[in-house]
């Protein structure tokens, strides 16, 4: 069956179609959707880069952001459809091609990319204007045809109506005429009280495909003559190939080639299983001369040593050292956070078709123009000769926003190694994905609090030690005065009113483990240390954890409001049902802002006699400004809870002599359904501009649970993941 990939970027695709006919495995419904898209393109009305209306009335919204599960496609389409007054059913979504001029992330400058929970926030005005502009042109076209004033025309559910003369037209009927009209210089956006889709329940546009096995992921791409590559990687970061013997690999049926590439040795075969068997048979000798050989125990020992000396100052208020000179009471706590793998369900992969003057890539593209530039640089092409097709990503959590384009460049290297003789699908097996690095960096935190005789918190010192994500990358320019802000976010901007504060940071540069942003980035560790430590301080001051925080949040009303809401909804201060047979139960609370979204959570926890922890319920209060799609907000917060609990209860990547010890889901186990708590999500009504929800549900989870465990057992857990040994009754 010949058809185009449904969720590929169509326009670039058409440009390349003459030289590249794709035989894709496409079930009927997707093929017909692709055909419909072609039909709707016959007489398109394309008023701007973000939408197109076909003669059949189909409204195609062009998404500049990656859909990796977070609901972006649906959210962006909602913004356009709202101002266009389209019927939700006539809207479809298509991924944009890489183009920093038209499709840049407005919060990132001249870069197209998805991350930092910015997709809706940066598109809020842009895509509503795109929809409103198209609507104005459709109305103008109707006014011209009917010879009536434009302001006597209404639009609703995709139908343009002139009520006095009872004339109606569909978008499709007006598309051609509208296309001939000038684009309005400015448009009036709706008053929020008139919203019909924003703030309501607009069902996701990708659900139908995803419940039928029809959504297109990179893993599902199959091009004619394509080879699948599985790569043998060095066991240690920084290792190299010394020598290899391909004989046994080439003897495997289906294997057609073995090629050395900078990151290892690639086995290319006609199918995935043959490639894997070929790699199993491959003999490689590695050169570990320059490889990183420390274990995580060694790394933490070094971090603990570093924490004894002052680091680069990230925040200074008053005179913290003076506050510690003669306080009534000092509390101290130190925390260790492990490396964490993203472990998206779809392991990293990438399809490359390399030709003489162009390179086509199919990928769950998250950093479009960064990847494009890196691929172009490697191949000696111009960026516009690198054609990126954005497919659905089977999760990312930051991993596909690779600052080094690591797996994409590896796929290109494989294609290059065979001189582009065949399209190549690079497949990382789960073990490759787990061991490849680009982890949430391991961190060590040391905190100290000084209280005066009245129990008032007068001093706060917070020292962080961990690798910088931005160092030695294209983003290194964002490091100011030795501070990589993603290392200290959540710590340097601690909202509590404390007169004397010092936050400082060590960013060791000689640890050879690649690190990367991991769903909520710095807040994955800073929320934990600050929000558990503040609970310890509240206890030392003899105060209720909610009341203690509220007293320090006078200048942060949005923090305070979500904290109050979560406490109220969770029944904070009322008795919790007792556990059976000596099981200990308690509540714990945490509040944290990340990416300008404010989340408070109250965890209800049962600690069993053997020390195991059951998280029964998490009550969440979220202030993300205007909730564009409240059901999706709930969905993202629920998911954030699951993601965070995986890490808190059982997530750790460890190294021994430089070798990653985990390989698959038996030793790096994400949460399963039997461990998932009940999650109640309460959204704060707001008229503020929308902010993101993909990440902010994560940070408060672990500290809220830890605070509940402390309330139940009297034991503060300082290291993640939680050790159940410490909690035995």
């Amino acid at each position, binding site marked *: 069956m010949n058809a185009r990939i449904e969720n590929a970027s169509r326009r670039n695709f058409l440009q390349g179609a003459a030289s590249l006919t794709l035989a894709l495995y496409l079930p009927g419904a997707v093929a017909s959707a692709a055909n419909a898209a072609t039909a709707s393109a016959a007489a398109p009305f394309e008023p701007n880069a973000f939408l197109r209306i076909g003669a059949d009335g189909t409204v195609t919204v062009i998404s500049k952001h990656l859909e990796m599960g977070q609901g972006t496609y649906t959210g962006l389409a909602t913004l356009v459809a709202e101002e266009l007054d389209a019927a939700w059913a006539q809207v479809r979504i298509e991924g944009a091609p890489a183009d920093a001029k038209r499709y840049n992330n407005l919060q990132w400058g001249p870069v197209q990319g998805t991350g930092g929970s910015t997709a809706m926030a940066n598109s809020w005005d842009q895509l509503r204007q795109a929809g409103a502009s198209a609507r104005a042109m459709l109305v103008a076209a109707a006014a011209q045809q009917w010879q009536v004033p434009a302001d006597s025309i209404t639009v609703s559910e995709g139908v343009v109506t002139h009520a006095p003369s009872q004339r109606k037209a569909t978008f499709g009927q007006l598309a051609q005429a509208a296309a001939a009209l000038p684009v309005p210089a400015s448009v009036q956006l709706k008053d929020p009280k008139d919203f019909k889709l924003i703030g309501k329940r607009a069902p996701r546009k990708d659900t139908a495909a995803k419940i039928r096995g029809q959504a297109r992921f990179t893993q599902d791409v*199959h091009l004619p003559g394509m080879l699948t590559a599985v790569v043998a990687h060095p066991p240690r970061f920084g290792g190299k190939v010394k020598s290899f013997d391909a004989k046994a690999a080439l003897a495997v049926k289906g294997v057609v080639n073995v090629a050395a590439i900078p990151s290892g040795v690639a086995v290319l075969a006609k199918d995935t299983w043959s490639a894997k068997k070929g790699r199993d048979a491959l003999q490689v000798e590695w050169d570990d001369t320059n490889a990183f050989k420390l274990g995580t125990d060694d790394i933490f020992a070094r971090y603990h040593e570093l924490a004894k000396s002052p680091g680069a100052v990230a925040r200074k208020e008053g005179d913290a050292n003076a506050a510690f000179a003669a306080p009534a009471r000092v509390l101290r706590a130190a925390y260790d956070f492990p490396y964490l793998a993203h472990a998206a369900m779809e392991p990293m992969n990438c399809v490359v078709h390399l030709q003489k003057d162009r390179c086509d890539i199919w990928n769950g593209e998250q950093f479009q123009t960064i990847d494009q530039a890196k691929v172009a640089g490697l191949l000696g092409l111009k960026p516009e000769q690198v054609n990126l097709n954005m497919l659905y990503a089977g999760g990312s959590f930051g991993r596909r926003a690779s600052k080094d384009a690591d797996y994409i460049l590896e796929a290109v290297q494989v294609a290059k190694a065979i001189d582009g003789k065949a399209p190549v699908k690079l497949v990382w097996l789960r073990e490759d994905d787990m061991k490849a690095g680009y982890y949430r960096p391991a961190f060590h935190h040391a905190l100290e609090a000084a209280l005066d005789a009245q129990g008032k918190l007068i001093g706060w010192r917070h020292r962080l030690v961990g690798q910088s994500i931005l160092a030695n990358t294209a983003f290194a320019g964002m490091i100011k005065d030795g501070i990589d802000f993603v290392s200290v976010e959540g710590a340097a901007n601690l909202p509590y009113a404390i007169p004397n504060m010092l936050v400082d940071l060590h960013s060791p540069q000689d640890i050879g483990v690649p690190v990367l942003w991991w769903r909520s980035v710095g807040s994955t560790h800073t929320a934990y240390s600050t929000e558990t430590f503040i609970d310890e301080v509240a206890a030392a001051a003899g105060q209720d954890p909610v009341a203690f925080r509220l007293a320090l949040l006078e200048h942060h009303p949005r923090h305070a409001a979500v904290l109050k809401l979560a406490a109220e909804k969770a029944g904070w201060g009322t008795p919790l049902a007792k556990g059976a047979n000596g099981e200990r139960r308690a509540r714990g609370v945490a509040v944290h802002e990340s990416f300008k979204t404010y989340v408070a959570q109250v965890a209800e926890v049962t600690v069993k006699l053997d020390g195991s922890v059951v998280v029964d319920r998490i009550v969440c209060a979220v202030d993300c400004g205007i909730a564009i799609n409240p059901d999706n907000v709930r969905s993202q917060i629920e998911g954030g809870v699951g993601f965070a609990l995986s890490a808190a209860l059982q997530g750790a990547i460890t190294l021994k002599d430089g070798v990653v010890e985990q390989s698959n889901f038996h030793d790096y186990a994400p949460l399963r359904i039997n461990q998932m708590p009940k999650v109640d999500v309460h959204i704060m009504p707001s008229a503020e501009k929308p902010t993101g929800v993909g990440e902010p549900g994560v940070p408060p989870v672990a500290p809220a649970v830890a605070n509940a465990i402390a309330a139940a057992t009297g034991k503060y857990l300082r290291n993640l993941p939680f050790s159940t040994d410490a909690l035995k009754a």
Partner: protein
Amino acid sequence: MTYQLNINGAAHKADVEGETPLLWVLRDTLGLTGTKYGCGAGACGACTVHIDGNVVRSCVMPVSAVGKGKVRTIEALSPDRKHALQQAWIAEQVPQCGYCQSGMLMAAAALLKSTPKPTDAQIDAAMTNLCRCGTYPRVRRAIKRAAGMKAEDAA
């Protein structure tokens, strides 16, 4: 060697080594890509299919062991794609990234066949599939909805 397979009610031939997991025969040989690769170790369930109505993790099922078993994949969960679970999945807006959902649905379909009104404990025992996006609360609700139960039933 050539294996004769009954997949989604149709006869298929696959000329592969007998040890090849059914997953790769479905995906790479037959182009049925709805069934996903997640771990290759039977640990995540993204590759879940039915053989004679039973849940099988196809990534650890050698094709030689399939024999005359009737294989059913997500593509044929219901002839009109309106299985009660698919409808419930829409009503509860379950999928996020969607990669694990084929396997989730196949596991849930087998559960409801054997246990039409599952308790939470029965859902926990049957639904061992991994979802990294954390759709679990919605998976649970959707299963109950498809079973005609209220979300709070059988807690």
